[in-house]
């Protein structure tokens, strides 16, 4: 039978109880002093405990690190995939918004240009290129049912694109200004010398029949003269990049870099008006009093 010393236990309990009461009262009545006492008493103990604590903490960190990096990777992988999907979606939306923004700017410029320059013109979209290799043409999504006819000029806000050579009810074929079979009357803006602009086989254009006495030079801008080609006067064609002057020739010629890159044209204006306004009328210059 187990013997229990109730007396000793009772007195020890009593002592412990008294000490606890004193401690509680001490905490309540003298909190600052007791805390500093305990702090000082605990410093060596804390230093001793800190060693195994750091070891355990290090182990825990390593385990947590391993868990986070490798064991819990499944969740991270899923999260990563989800984030990638969201990123792709946002990229796609961003691309669409950029494209919409660019298209809006382009169409606004075209609309503004149409309002201010050409009252009778039709906006059309490029839907294709020549089916053969012999001509440089573009195909428009508007045709004879929209009022398009052969020999009508085709322009963009940047400059001349070409002229309509063929139409169906819903499409039109435009011979580009860079095609060697195309010819438009051109004018050097600075010197006012006129000539004929033809395309070249290298995809550029050439201003021919410039008078020998002309002082045209590279960098001069060439615009339409409005005489031939169904395009009003003053629409940019290109910039002179080289002057060719042959001995004993009656004229000089100039190689042009076209203002419009035909490979990048997306929307154009087809000039329908039979009475093409003059440069003065277009620019709003007051007419001289009669």
């Amino acid at each position: 039978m187990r013997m229990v010393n109730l007396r000793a236990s009772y007195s020890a309990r009593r002592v412990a109880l008294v000490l606890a009461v004193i401690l509680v009262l001490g905490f309540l009545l003298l909190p600052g002093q007791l805390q500093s006492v305990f702090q000082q008493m605990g410093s060596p103990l804390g230093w001793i405990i800190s060693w195994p604590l750091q070891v355990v903490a290090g182990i825990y960190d390593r385990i947590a690190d391993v868990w986070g990096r490798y064991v819990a990777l499944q969740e991270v992988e899923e999260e990563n995939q989800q984030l990638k999907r969201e990123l792709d979606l946002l990229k796609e939306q961003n691309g669409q918004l950029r494209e919409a923004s660019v298209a809006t700017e382009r169409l606004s410029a075209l609309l503004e240009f149409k309002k201010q320059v050409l009252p009778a013109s039709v906006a059309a979209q490029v839907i294709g290129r020549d089916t053969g290799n012999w001509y440089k043409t573009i195909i428009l999504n508007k045709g004879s049912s929209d009022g398009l006819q052969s020999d009508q000029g085709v322009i963009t806000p940047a400059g001349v694109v070409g002229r309509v050579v063929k139409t169906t009810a819903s499409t039109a074929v435009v011979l580009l200004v860079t095609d060697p079979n195309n010819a438009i009357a051109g004018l050097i803006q600075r010197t006012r010398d006129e000539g004929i602009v033809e395309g070249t086989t290298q995809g550029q254009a050439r201003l021919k029949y410039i008078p020998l006495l002309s002082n045209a030079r590279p960098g001069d801008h060439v615009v339409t003269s409005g005489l031939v080609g169904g395009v009003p006067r003053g629409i940019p064609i290109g910039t002179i990049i080289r002057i060719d002057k042959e001995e004993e020739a009656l004229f000089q010629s100039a190689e042009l870099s076209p203002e419009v890159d035909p490979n990048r044209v997306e929307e154009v204006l087809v000039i329908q008006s039979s009475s093409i306004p003059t440069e003065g009328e277009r620019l709003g210059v007051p007419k001289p009093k009669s």
Partner: protein
Amino acid sequence: MKALIYFAVIVGLVPIQSVLLPHISVWGVKPDLSFVAVCLVGLIAGELDGLLVGLALGWAMSLFSAQDLISGAVLKGTTGFVAGLAGRQVVYLSPIVLVAGLLVVSCLTGLVTPFVLKLSVQQDWWWAVWTVVLPQACLDAVIGGLIYWLMWSRLNIEQLMSESRM
């Protein structure tokens, strides 16, 4: 049924030629799928089919080009007719022979075209040969050979030719 297939070929080839091929052209030159189609139709189905499909396809392609309608139709029609006559003379046609044949016929057609179209003086014969005729003939021959090889490996061409020509 045959007419429906020809109609589908004509309607389908024009958008492919004008919208898709310019994006995959080699050195600015694209193959002439209508030429390949007309040659294959002429070889397999005979000179009459080749002529009619050539005329129709040449006309349809010319509608979407600066090329005049009549020359386009006549050139393609003639090509189809010649292909039909050539097909009648051969008993067995391997893809290699077809490639060589397409190369020669495409070159000949390409050499005739600048004179028929009365192009600019800049586009002289020498320019035409090096810039358009030879590259296009090579592309036509490769594509035509590929299509014929696919048909040759999957279909009984001799039987198809004899049935089509009846």
